[in-house]
């Protein structure tokens, strides 16, 4: 009745998807922390110091959510996907182990200094900690993407055993780490993360300028974010192109599904928008013939491999993928246009008066966030029906001992927890943004003791409770 497979897949998509809201923001913001604190050390300008402190607080909040939601992922392989864990453990475990030992500990260790060490270590040591946290965040993402890429394009392994004992054994570590899609996918993911940081910063800065608050701070942020953003969006364009072509080479079924190509024919079209129906084996919509061939093979007439060349049992879930993939591209377009618009207005020195530009910029943070999620869905749905491409099907990866009821229970738990977390996160993020980056010596301290002053005994006022 309750299918543990479907429920487990929904649950995995839910907690990975929810988790994936946060790490791209931490990675993106960590880049800005390094830039801002570096600028502070270089110029000794108080504004940069305040900006760093401000973003560190936001970083702390996002990081906490990222860790809290990320812990689920480690255990989920064992709880719901025990057969998968056994099958890939020999290879996959080494990659995740490296992530844990090299990256995650570094990140969490230095985070303490980054958040609380302002008065405990010198400015240079603090900057060093900031760099280590940023490096840890990036390095962590690196191992995770490599492990995931191994699931997409496995290499450096060998299969041993029969039946329930069938599993992969590592033969060449570096070949498994640098499997064919590792580097392309890593670039694509990191650029997505940096763009998320750029637009988070732009969004906050646009808000301040619109409200005519913290103007000096807003201007500095916009200037830096526009430069980083321009570099990232151009690199992302290039990275997207190579990712697509890597998919065409190593996972042709994925590319065919992303583009809704059912027939292998010359002048393969690119759909601007439309609807792909796996049932009718047809894609409806507005198309430009030859563009897909041009993108994939750099030649208009060269046919792109269609789903007709692939057995139907190996088809990914085409209908949703076609949409998530297109959404990602639209979001890229939105970001591109916003950056050009902002650059032009900035060049004409009219940025601060362009009300509409600032208003839209405020909401453009939704573009990278949704692009990250839809991109991830496209990549993972495109790997189906395999959990490890070509080696193990998703339906064989499920734990044998779990029941639908158990998974439903945990799924409901996650839905409740995550809804609560999302509301709280937005609430506190807003509070921090409203508080702003400026020094407020006389302002109300949000961290004040609520009991202080009201009950006001000398014992409660003294910070260390020395009175008896």
């Amino acid at each position, binding site marked *: 009745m309750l299918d543990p497979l479907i429920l487990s897949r929904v649950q995995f998509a839910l907690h990975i998807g929810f988790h994936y809201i946060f790490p791209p923001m931490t990675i993106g913001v960590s880049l800005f922390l390094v830039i801002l604190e570096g600028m502070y050390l270089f110029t000794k300008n108080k504004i940069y110091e305040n900006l760093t402190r401000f973003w560190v607080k936001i970083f702390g909040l996002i990081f*906490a*959510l990222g*860790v*809290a*939601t990320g*812990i*689920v992922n480690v*255990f989920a*392989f*064992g*709880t719901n996907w*025990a*057969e998968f*864990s*056994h099958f*890939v*453990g*020999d290879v*996959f*475990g080494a990659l995740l*182990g*490296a992530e*844990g*030992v*090299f990256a*995650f*500990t*570094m990140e*969490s*260790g*230095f985070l*303490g200094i980054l958040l*609380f*060490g*302002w*008065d*405990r*270590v010198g400015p240079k040591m603090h900057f060093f900690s900031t760099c280590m946290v940023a490096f840890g965040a990036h390095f962590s993402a690196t191992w995770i993407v490599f492990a995931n890429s191994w699931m997409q394009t496995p290499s450096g392994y060998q299969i041993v055993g029969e039946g329930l004992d069938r599993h992969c*054994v*590592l*033969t060449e*570590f570096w070949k498994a780490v640098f499997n064919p899609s590792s580097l392309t996918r890593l670039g694509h993911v990191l650029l997505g993360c940096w763009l998320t940081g750029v637009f988070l910063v732009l969004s906050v800065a646009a808000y301040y300028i619109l409200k005519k608050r913290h103007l000096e701070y807003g201007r500095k942020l916009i200037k830096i974010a526009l430069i980083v953003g321009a570099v990232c969006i151009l690199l992302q364009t290039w990275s997207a192109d190579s990712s697509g072509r890597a998919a065409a080479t190593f996972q042709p079924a994925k590319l065919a599904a992303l583009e809704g190509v059912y027939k292998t024919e010359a002048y393969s079209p690119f759909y601007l928008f439309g609807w792909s129906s796996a049932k009718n084996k047809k894609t409806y919509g507005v198309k430009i013939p030859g563009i897909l061939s041009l993108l994939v093979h750099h030649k208009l007439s060269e046919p792109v491999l269609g789903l007709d060349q692939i057995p139907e049992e190996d088809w990914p879930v085409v209908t949703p993928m076609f949409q998530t993939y297109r959404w990602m591209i639209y979001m890229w377009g939105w970001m591109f246009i916003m950056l050009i618009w902002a650059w032009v207005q900035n060049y004409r020195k009219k940025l601060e008066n362009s009300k509409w530009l600032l208003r839209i910029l405020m909401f453009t943070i939704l573009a990278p966030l949704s692009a990250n999620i839809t991109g991830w869905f496209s990549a993972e749905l495109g790997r189906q029906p395999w959990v490890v491409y070509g080696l193990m099907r998703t339906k064989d990866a499920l*734990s*044998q*001992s*779990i029941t639908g009821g158990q998974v439903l*229970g945990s799924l409901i*738990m996650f839905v409740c*927890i995550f809804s609560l*977390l999302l509301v709280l996160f937005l609430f506190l993020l807003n*509070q921090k943004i409203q508080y702003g980056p400026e020094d407020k010596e006389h302002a109300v301290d949000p961290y004040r*003791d*609520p*009991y202080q002053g009201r009950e006001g005994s000398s*014992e409660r006022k003294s*910070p*260390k*409770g*020395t009175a*008896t």
Partner: protein
Amino acid sequence: MNLIFLQYFWYCIIYVALFAFAALDGFDLGVGILHLTARNDNERRLYLNAIGPVWDGNSVWLIIVGGGLFAGFPLAFATIFSSFYNLTMILIGGIIFRAVAIEFRSKRPSKLWRTTWDCLFSFSSLVISICVGFILAGLISGIPIDQYGVFKGSFSSFFNFFTIIFAVTVVALFVMHGTTFLMMKTEGDVRKNLQRWALPCCAFFILSLSLLTLSAWFLQPHLVSIFRAHPWLLTFAGLEALASLGLIRSLYHNQAGRAFLWSSATILFLFVLCALGNFPSIIRSTLNNVDGITIYNASSSQKTLSILLIIVAIGIPFVLAYTFWLYKTFRGKVVIDSHSY
């Protein structure tokens, strides 16, 4: 390097990580359980900020245990977490709530807001400790799994006299460890209040530890067989008793730092005893004619284990170095400033 050596080595690594988890995250879980005993908001903030800069790094050790099992003993990883599905999910729920409670608690001045998070923080710390206790107890006392590691029991298979005593001991251990840590980090009135708690906590821990030892001796004969075969290993039991006595003595003399070290030593020897008693099994099976999951049938290949050895050899010195630096930076009594929780 030969496979058997690597398997032994990785078994030790898992237990070392477990020890690091219990000795480090143990005290901040203990502080969490004690949180509601603090008498006012300032005291609660002192408690919270005593663990503020370190709790996140500490909880990484639980991930290392999970990741270490995944890498070194994939079959054990798969079996443990799919068998203990419900407990793991409750554990995860606890970890999420705890992380969030620490982060959010002091963010708003409202009394209702803080009290709610205080309760959640304390409750989730307790839930995490209990779940960890039951999972560890289940592993060493055995659960019904077949030769492929597929769980054949039900939720009630995890609860019996031994596992309940084990979970209680874990909670008592963490509370005691947390108390000694807080005593080290506070002064004046706050510390005096903690002192009142310390000895009863310690006494309760020793009581449950003795009960646990007795029930292991009489109810879990497989755990003591190695000690019957090699009586000299009972030295560790002696050391465990010695550490407990040292703990009582230092608490009696009001030496917090020393008490914390003795408390860590009790944890160390407790895990040494568990590791020895359970060896070479990782998950015992209670079904007849099934070996259960051992380090021999669950381990990764020789190649992977050698790579893991290299990763650990390179990585762990760094981890120790910055953990040490972190604790050094935040040594001394807690001070609340504008960056605190």
